[in-house]
Structure formats: structure tokens, C-alpha cells
């Protein structure tokens, strides 16, 4: 299912834009899909194990893997609220909610929770993905609470 891909918000003075992903041959399909609003996970062909980040083979059974679309839904495994940051590309976003999300397909991924007050975030909260473009090559998967 395709999710919205937002343009980044205008930057405050002196702030730097968020950095895109490093060049990584193995992750190229993942980042290409983000520009189309699609979140991918790797699934192994022999047993259906899932994983992120992308690897040359399945870390559970060593079987062959392929990329497939994820639902974009998940659950908060844990979170923190960063109150300070060394990077000028992130300082203007403080307080920044950094969270680990267990995707419904299985893999756990790092992200930021946005459009939610930090004090309202809970472990176990249901969340869904959207994307924010960070470069010509990639959009960053970010998550927001699923409306109840």
C-alpha cells in the first residue's frame, strides 16, 4: 500500500537539512521504494523469515531473500525523547522522539514518531508510516500514531 511522501518542511535559520542514507548497494531497492511511498522488508524464499536492514541472505536460515512491500503498520517497542543533539541537521527538531517499531511483518526498525506530543507516546502504541523526502534518492520513513 502506497503512503504519502512529503516534502521537507522549510528549515529554520542556521539549521541544516536532514542527511540522507549513505550509498549502500544492498539497500538501493529499499531507498528507491521510499520515493514511491512504499516501505519494503526482506523476506526469505524458503521459510518466509523477514528482516531489515537488507542482507545478502536470510540471517535466520541463510536462505535466498527478496524485497516485498510491508503494510506500513507497527507497534512501538520502545522510545526515548532526545532533549539535546550534536547535529545541526537535527537540533531544530528537538525534542525529538526516537522510537523502535516492531513492524507487523516482524522486523524492528528505528524511526522518529511525529505529529504526537512526546508525553503521549507509549510502549505498545499502534503507529503507521509516512515518508519525508531527504534527497533525490531517498525519503525517510517516519511514523505517526494510528487514529483510534
Amino acid at each position, binding site marked *: 500500500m502506497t503512503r504519502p511522501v512529503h516534502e521537507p518542511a522549510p528549515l529554520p535559520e542556521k539549521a541544516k537539512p536532514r542527511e540522507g542514507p*549513505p550509498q549502500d548497494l*544492498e539497500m538501493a531497492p529499499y531507498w528507491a521504494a521510499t520515493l514511491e511511498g512504499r516501505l519494503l522488508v526482506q523476506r526469505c524464499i524458503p521459510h518466509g523469515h523477514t528482516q531489515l536492514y537488507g542482507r545478502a541472505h536470510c540471517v535466520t536460515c541463510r536462505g535466498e531473500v527478496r524485497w516485498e512491500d510491508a503494510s506500513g503498520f507497527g507497534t512501538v517497542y*520502545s522510545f*526515548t525523547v*532526545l*532533549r539535546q543533539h550534536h547535529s545541526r541537521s*537535527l537540533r531544530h527538531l528537538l525534542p525529538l522522539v526516537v522510537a*523502535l517499531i516492531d513492524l507487523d511483518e516482524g522486523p524492528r526498525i528505528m524511526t522518529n514518531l511525529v505529529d504526537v506530543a512526546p508525553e503521549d507516546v507509549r510502549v505498545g502504541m499502534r503507529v503507521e508510516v509516512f515518508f519525508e523526502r531527504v534527497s533525490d534518492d531517498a525519503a525517510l520513513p517516519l511514523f505517526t500514531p494510528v487514529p483510534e
Partner: protein
Amino acid sequence: MTAPAGRRAVIAGAATSDYPVLPDKAETEVHVQAAERALADAGLTFDDVDGYATVGYYPMYCVGMCEYLGIHPTWLDETNIGGASFEVHVEHAARAVEAGAAEVVLITYGSVQLSAMGRRIGGRGGSVSATQAWDAMWGNTLVGSYALAATRHMAEYGTTAEQLAEIAVTFRRHAGFNPFAQYRDPITVDDVLASRMVADPLHMLDCCVVSDGGGACVVTTEERARDLPKRPVHVLGGAHTLTHALNVSQSHDLTVSSAARSGPLALQRAGVALEDVDVLQLYDSFTITVLVTLEDLGFCAKGEGGSFVEGGRLAFDGALPTNTDGGGLSACHPGMRGMFLIVEAVRQLRGEAGATQVADAELALVHGTGGMLSTGATLLLGTEAP
């Protein structure tokens, strides 16, 4: 560890450098000062050294230090698992001397991260390669990673901020007895909770200090140590492992650290039981690091660490004396603190620990933690041969 009686591994010398603030020293000078003190403590010189281990942030760091020191050892180790690396170096060095691959192994650590870079507690250290940068794009930091573990531990087991704070309060009390400690004034649980929030739920006083400093130790055989001045400390056993590297998303359970596997394996190799441990030196990058490590080593059940640390249990005069020098939370944390744990354990086992000396300390457990709660290395050190 099984070795011929004469070749059993011991620590013959150990020392810290000056700390915690060294504005006029280069990193290499910190290594040298620690090395000279540890060798003098052992009654040995650089000419006796035929094995060397260290680690730092640059490529070929270990041989670079050899070149700088003007030594040309025939046994080298630059294993890097973060702050716990030096526990691994001691484990490796012990195996090497027992196998006859080296006679005298010098292990050194030096850092001037505070004076060189200032406070970097909110930052992420080191360089990152492509897959290791996976988590980093979302702005996660070192303290953020430990905060994620703390949030999960609280949600799963009801651990409270007050319980975490108790750890910082106890170690600060120890630092009050350590003239070199970076922070020595007593603090209360309320002080910790009132300190600035860095990454929820970790306050500034839940985080280690940022310091300069280093340390060194000398590993040799029991036979060689017989003629040396100080009472040797036996390296009874060691083990290390990882749960993930720099991506905390790759940990299956952030409330369980590497200590859950390195601890039991090290105890088994040492042939000693947890209940025989007299003094603990645990990596305390953050209060949550200590709490999780205590659970994983088996001192209490998973989830019970919060109530376990209450009532001053970890104090030098409590039931389980821990971090008797004030730890990284108060005394000194130059970035990779594992060497300080070893030096303090040796001091305790020799009865040289001063005001926080644990009476009749015969068995010490040292556990280093590296990375983002990623790696762990356990050592059992004792006054008696296995």
C-alpha cells in the same frame, strides 16, 4: 582456565594514569604514564614486554602505539568491542601466556576526549559505515540507545526512575572517598531526578561523566610473578559476546545484555560460583547499564534489578560492593572505561583500595559493556589460583 601450574595467568601490575582532566597531555602520553606505572607496580620494564594490546579510534592503533613506545612485541591484540575491549585483551593475554605465546603482556589505555573535544554526551562516537549507519539516520545517539533500553525495562517490569537514580547516588558516595574522582559531592535520588533530562528517561546524573585518563595492566605467568614485588591477581576466567553492534534495532530484546551469556560462560571457565563474588566492577556508562548487567549476570531475576539496587546494596559497605572507585558515573569515564574496572578490581584484591576497601575480598567479577549496550566481556579475578 586449565594451564600447567607454573604458566597460569596472573595480573602482576596495574595502575591508572592521572585523571580526570588532562588539558596538557596528548593521548599517547596518557598511555605512557599508565604503562610506566603498571610496569613499575609489577617490578618490570618495557624490556620485559613481549606482548602488547590496546585499542583506540584510529586504524592500526595498536602497532602505532608500539612504534611510538619503541617496542616490537611478538604477540599483539587490537580487539575492539568498544569500552569492554580491555577485558577481552586480558582474557586473550591470559590465554596467550598460558599457551606460551607470550611471557609479559602489557595492556594500555589512554584518552583525552574531554580536553580534545569537550562534552559529547549527546553525540554519537566514531565513524560509521553503510550498514552500521542504519539506525543513525533517525538521530539516535549513544545515550538515546541506553534510554531506549531503560524505557522498555520500565514498561516491561515497572522499574522506576528513583531505582535507577539509587545507582548513581551509591557510586557518588564511593567517589567521595576517591581524591581523583571528577565529582565527589554527595547527591540524592531527588538530585538525580531534578537534573536535566538528556534522553527520557535518563537524566544527566544517570549518565557517565566525560573525562580524560587511562590505565594499564601487565599479564604474565604465575611462575614469573613469583619473583615480582606485588601479590599476583589470578585471571581465573573470561568470556565475551555481542547482542548487536551499533544498531540497537538489531537487538532481539533490549532488556537483555551480552552479560547474560558472557557471565555464565566466564563463571564456568573460572570454576567459581556467583555467590562467591566479593566485589563487583561493572561498566556504568549509564545507570540502566548497571541494572541490566546485575540481572543478566544472575545476581537477581530479570526485571527485579530495580528493587535489588535499593537500600544501598551496591555500596562498599553493602551486601554487594560495586564500583568502589566511584565508577564512570562519578569518578572518570574517558570513553572506553573497561581498563579502570580491571585496575580497581586488582586494587581491591590486593587490599589497596583505601576507604572503600571490601574486607577479605578474594574474588572479583569485572564486566565491561561496549557500544550501544551491544557487547559484553566478563572477567573473574581472584587472589587464589584456580
